[in-house]
C-alpha cells in the first residue's frame, strides 16, 4: 500500500507571457489503501495533480512524496522504471494500442519486467478475469465497446500489480450502466487488493463508491464544493 503527501505543491505553466498556475500551494495527504474521488470544475488542475503524482510531470515547487519517495528528483529513466512498478494509470479515452489485441495490450506493462512467458500469461489472464473481460482477450480495441475497452485498460493498469492506481475520468465517456460497472470494479480493486486509488471524476455517482471526495478549485483544495459545481 502506498501513501501520498503533498506539501505546498505548486505547478506553473508558462504560456508565452502569461503564467498559468493549475496547482497553487496544495497540501494533501492520502492514506495508504484509501479510495479517493477528486472532483472539480474543468481546468481546476485535476489532471495536473494526477500527472505529478504519477511522475509524468514535475512540480514547479513544493514537496511531493509518494510512498515516502521524493519522485520529483528522480531521473527520467528512473521515473519510468518507478512508474512501471508502482503506478497503474487509467485514462478517460482508454488509450489502448490499436494494433494489439486486448491480451497483448494487457501484456504490455509486463514486458518491461523480467518475467517468464508462463508467468506473464498467468498474470494477464488474472488481470483480464478481474476486469471481467477475459472472454474478449483476442479482440482488437476497435472490436470492443467503450465499457469493454475501459475494462481492458483497467486490466492493463493492474496487471503488473502496482500499489497505486490513478484514474482520470475513467467513466467520462461511458453510459450510466457501464460507468456503474467500472466504478464497482474500481471499488473491488481497492477493497480486495488494497490498492490506493485516486479517481478524477465529473460524475457525482463516483462519490458513492469512494471513501472520501476531494474538491479542487483553481488549484486549491476546498472543503465544500463551490457554487458552480453543486449545480453541475
Amino acid at each position, binding site marked *: 500500500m502506498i501513501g501520498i503527501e503533498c506539501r505546498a505543491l505548486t505547478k506553473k505553466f508558462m504560456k508565452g507571457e502569461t503564467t498559468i498556475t493549475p496547482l497553487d500551494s496544495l497540501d494533501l495527504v492520502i492514506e495508504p489503501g484509501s479510495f479517493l474521488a477528486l472532483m472539480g470544475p474543468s481546468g481546476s488542475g485535476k489532471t495536473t495533480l494526477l500527472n505529478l503524482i504519477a511522475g509524468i510531470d514535475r512540480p514547479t515547487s513544493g514537496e511531493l512524496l509518494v510512498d515516502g519517495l521524493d519522485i520529483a528528483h528522480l531521473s527520467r529513466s528512473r521515473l519510468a522504471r518507478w512508474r512501471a512498478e508502482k503506478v497503474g*494509470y487509467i485514462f478517460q479515452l482508454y488509450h489502448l494500442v490499436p494494433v494489439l489485441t486486448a491480451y497483448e495490450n494487457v501484456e504490455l506493462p509486463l*514486458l*518491461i519486467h523480467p518475467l517468464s512467458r508462463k508467468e506473464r500469461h498467468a498474470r494477464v489472464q488474472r488481470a483480464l478475469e478481474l476486469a471481467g473481460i477475459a472472454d474478449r482477450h483476442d479482440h482488437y480495441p476497435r472490436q470492443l465497446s467503450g465499457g469493454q475497452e475501459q475494462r481492458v485498460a483497467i486490466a492493463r493498469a493492474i496487471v503488473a500489480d502496482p500499489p497505486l492506481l490513478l484514474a482520470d475520468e475513467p467513466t467520462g465517456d461511458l453510459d450510466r450502466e457501464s460507468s456503474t460497472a467500472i466504478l464497482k470494479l474500481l471499488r473491488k480493486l481497492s477493497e480486495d487488493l488494497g490498492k490506493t486509488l485516486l479517481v478524477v471524476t465529473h460524475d457525482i455517482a463516483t462519490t458513492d463508491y469512494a471513501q472520501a471526495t476531494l474538491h479542487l478549485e483553481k488549484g486549491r483544495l476546498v472543503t465544500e464544493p463551490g457554487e458552480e459545481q453543486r449545480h453541475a
Partner: protein
Amino acid sequence: MRGLPFDYATRNLGRSPGRLAGALVGSTLVTLLVIASASFIRGMGASLDPPAGNSNVIFLGAGSEESVERSEIRMQAADVVGTISGLRTRLGQPFISPEVHIGLAVRTDPAVPEGRLTPLRGVRPSAFLVHSEVQITEGRAPVAGANELLVGGLVSGQLGVPDARLGLGEVLHIDGREWRIVGRMRAPRTVIDAEIWIPLTDLQVIAQRDNLSCVIATLVPGEADITDAEILAAQRLDLELAVMTESEYYATLSRFYAPVRAMVLATALLVALGGILGGLNTMVAAFASRVREVGTLQVIGYPRRAIILSFLQESWIISSCGALVAGALGWAVLDGVAVRFSMGAFGLIVDAPVLAIGVGAGLGLGLLGALPPTIHCLRLPVGQALKS
C-alpha cells in the same frame, strides 16, 4: 530491461497501407538508385582499368596522348617499335599490334538513315597476342578483304538490338557496305567489349587513311621497360611518337571521365536526398499520428529508448525489404547492362561491393531517416502528448 514486442513494430506497419507502400517504394528506389550509380561508376572504372599484370606500352601520336581516336602515326612506326629488344614473342612472332581506332556509324538496318556511332578497331592477328584478355567466344577472327567483323559482347547494347541480332552470319552496314559477323568476342570489363574489330587494312580503306592510331607492344618484364620505349620515341623524332604504359593511358582516360563520375554521384546523392526527405515526411506523418500512444507507453513505464528502438525497427523492416527488393532487382536487371557512353559502352557491374553499398545505404538511410521523426515525436512532454 525488455523492450516493446517486435509485433508492435510489424503490426504498426499495417496501420496505413498507403504509407507503407510509399515508404517501401521509396526505400526500394533509393537503394536501387544507389546501386545503379555505384554499378555505373564501378563499371566505368573497371572498363578503364587495364587488365592486371599488363606490361603493354602504347605508342601514340605526340600531342594526342589523351585520345587514341585523334592520334595518327605512320605505318612505319610498327616496324620501328619492333627494334626494341625485350619485346615478347611467340613462335617468333613479336607482340606488336598496329591498330586504327575510329568511331563510325554502324547500321543494323540499311533503311535507317543514321547508324549509331560505334568504336571500331582495325587490327592484325597480332592484336590477339597483345590483348590477351580478348577471347573469341564464337566463330573466328575476321580475314582481311572479305568484309568480315568480330563483335564484342556489349555491342548489341550499344546498337540497341537484341544480342541474337549480332549472331554469326548476321550482317551489319558500315560505310554503305555489308559486313558479315564471323566471330564474337568477350573482354569483360574492358573498353574492347563494346568494340567491333575489323581487319586493319579494311578499316584503313573505309576510313581512307594510310596511317595508324597507335602501336601497342608487350614487353618482357625485366628485359625491357617503358624507358626503352621512351628512348626510342625520343630518338625517332621523325615518327612524332609519344609513349606510355597502357596503365597510364587508361589512368589518363579515367581522369578525363572523372567529372562524369562526379556528376553521376552528385545526381544520385541529390535524388537519394530527395528520397530521404520524402521518406522522412512519410515517417513524420506516420509517427505524428501516434503521439498519444507514445505518451501512453511512457506512462506505462516504457523508457524512451525502448520506443525509439521500436520505431527504428519499424523503419528498418521497411528499408530492409526495400533494400532486398532493390538488391535482387539490381543484381538481376542491372548487372552487365550496356551503358552507351561517349562513343563506346561499358557494362554496369553489380557485384558484392556494389550490392553492399546499395543495401547498406538503403538500410542506413532507413534508420537515419526514422530518427528525426522519432525524436520529434518523443520531444513532447508526456502530459501534453496524452492530451493531443
